[in-house]
């Protein structure tokens, strides 16, 4: 196991643990306002200080991890559950009109400015975590479709697929039985990367007010709230910023480490 993997897994699991722990315990009620105690700097009482409403930052970071993880994970879920079948289908029907349709559709989605569409989606359906998930998820679909298709196409050239065809298996069965397990590693690695991008995207959307709605804490919104206060309460911006960076860093390191571990030759898209 590489250093990357260990460090990445450690960071990521720290975040996940904090999120899980927050279901049963946080030092304070994350939503409890205490305006007289606002803007305290980190100290013994409040480890990460308090925000402009006197809420405990540590508790908010813990619960915010939950939001980030949930949004990013579900968005990756959407992307995978739609993108992978599309990619497999396109590869199985390489060169056909269906392949063409799927790939052109992909290109089209890629051509849309993602943030603008995310803003539009939330303008249409209202701001909220669910719509953030959909907005991020939609743009995950072509990523997974494309990478699955690419990997599947090269697998379709392999002789063991030919052997399966000789054994009379149809394209759907071959995709499920032979292609999917062999692209799984790639998908896991890409999934980790998309997961980390999802965390960033959620933060961005929340930052412009389109993510999870209060009182659900979200790192992006914490940053947005803190923005005007950086000059006199920098911890409000630093702490959620560092939380995002460490989480994304952890996931990326883990992705790299997993790639080295699972298959050093696979390539992942990283944009």
């Amino acid at each position: 196991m590489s250093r990357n993997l260990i460090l990445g897994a450690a960071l990521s699991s720290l975040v996940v643990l904090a999120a899980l722990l927050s279901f049963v315990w946080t030092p304070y009620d994350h939503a409890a306002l205490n305006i007289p105690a606002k803007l305290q700097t980190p100290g013994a009482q409040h480890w990460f200080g308090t925000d402009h409403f006197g809420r405990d930052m540590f508790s908010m970071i813990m619960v915010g991890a939950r939001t980030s993880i949930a949004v990013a994970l579900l968005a990756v879920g959407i992307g995978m559950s739609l993108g992978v079948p599309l990619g497999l289908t396109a590869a199985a029907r390489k060169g056909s009109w269906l392949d063409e349709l799927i790939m052109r559709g992909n290109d089209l989605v890629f051509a849309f400015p993602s943030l603008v569409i995310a803003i539009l989606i939330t303008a249409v359906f209202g701001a909220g975590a669910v719509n953030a998930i959909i907005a991020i998820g939609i743009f995950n679909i072509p990523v997974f479709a494309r990478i699955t298709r690419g990997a599947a196409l090269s697998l379709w050239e392999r002789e063991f697929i030919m052997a399966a065809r000789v054994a009379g298996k149809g394209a759907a069965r071959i995709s499920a039985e032979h292609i999917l397990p062999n692209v799984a590693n790639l998908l896991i690695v890409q999934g980790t990367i998309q997961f980390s991008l999802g965390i960033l995207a959620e933060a961005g959307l929340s930052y412009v007010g389109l993510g999870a709605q209060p009182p659900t804490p979200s790192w992006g919104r914490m940053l947005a709230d803190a923005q005007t206060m950086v000059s006199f309460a920098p911890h409000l911006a630093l702490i959620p910023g560092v939380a995002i960076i460490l989480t994304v860093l952890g996931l990326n390191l883990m992705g790299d480490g997993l790639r080295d571990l699972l298959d050093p030759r696979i390539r992942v898209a990283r944009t």
Partner: protein
Amino acid sequence: KDDITIAMQLEPPHLDPTSAAAQAIDSVVYVNIFEGLTRFMGDGSIVPALAESWEISDDGTVYTFNLHDGVTFHDGTTMDAEDVKFSLDRARAEDSANAQKALFAGIDSVDVVDPQTVKVTLKEPDGNFLFNMAWGDAVIVAPESIENIKTAPVGTGPYTLGEWVQGDKIVLNRNPGYWGDQPALAQATFKFISDPTAAFAAVMAEDVDVFTGFPAPENLPQFEADPRFQVLVGSTEGETILSTNNKQPPFDNIKVRQAMAHAIDRQAIIDGAMFGYGTPIGSHFAPHNPAYVDLTGNSAFDPDKARALLAEAGFPDGFETTLHLPPPSYARRGGEIIAAQLAAVGIKAEITNVEWAQWLETVFKGKNFGLTIVSHTEPMDIGIYARPDYYFQYDNPAFQELMTTLNSTTDPDKRTELLQQAQRIISEDYVNGYLFQLAALSVAKAGVRGLWANAPTAATDLAAISWAE
């Protein structure tokens, strides 16, 4: 130094104050490019502008305005009674796009007596008429230049439009042909900075000289402590209220509304959302108005009483509702605090952040909401409580009658009494949650003089501004 850079949050969509509600338009053009018959002063008083003087008939229905001599529009055409008639008729016409058409609803006819005199006949006496004519929506425009008014505004004011870089800035230049005194500043640049952080940074970095309507009250102490800057804290006409859908159960129950009123800690909201800036109010009325009565006692913070009232109303375990929050930080931050305070007495208000367009559609027009927070910035707007179809749907015939009486009353003392009575009725009916009067916050370089502290209307009176030696 005879130029200045003034920043504000919102950019005007266009520059015609007579066909849009956007306050940003007035903030740039009012009394700078366009002038009306009367105008607001910084202290809220109404003084003559293009009308030098006027006579009011005894029954209060005919106003004869004597116009200033030698006033020309920026394009050189003269401003005379025909222009006044054109402007007023245009505003009240069938197909008018005036956002405040109600201001002109009382006008029966506008007649040109001679080039310097214009006679306005009202359908019935209106104590507010001179006040109405001071609004930005009632400025005088010329038929010659009306076509392109939105992008090439031509008015009578001391400044002309220099340049407009959309999305960035508007530059106004001194009008050498101005009929009044020449202002001190030769050029003023309005910059539009919507992001509060950017606003702070821009002032701190001295990119701008003045920021009117500074969006981040939390940053003001830093400016106050900095000798390079001065901070102006005044008041606006904005009553910030927790608007309540009076027709929607359970808010149709006065006990519920009363319970909410007692559940809310105004000071916490002012401290938490506005960092201390803002005056608590107990009714829909501006504290700086002479007719103001302090009714905050009616809804003192008392969670126990709130719980008791809720139980009485049949909601011992509270209830669930929605809280729609438009973009300004008073609403977004105030909403979070109010949601927490309501939660403390058992009312679960689910927050939905909306944009203005959405707010107008769902809350204001659709009346599809439980609670919302909004600042009503029109001056003297207690009359909205007499409109049963208004979005908070308060329908009280007694109050409506009171308003009719008020409108036909011109005697100042009588008016004060009626206004105070009106304040009491809505306060005791707990129509909405009355939170605070929005503060007017401006930051400027220490050397800037003549800025309005208060904001009786949206305006940046450039002619009053100068640099200290």
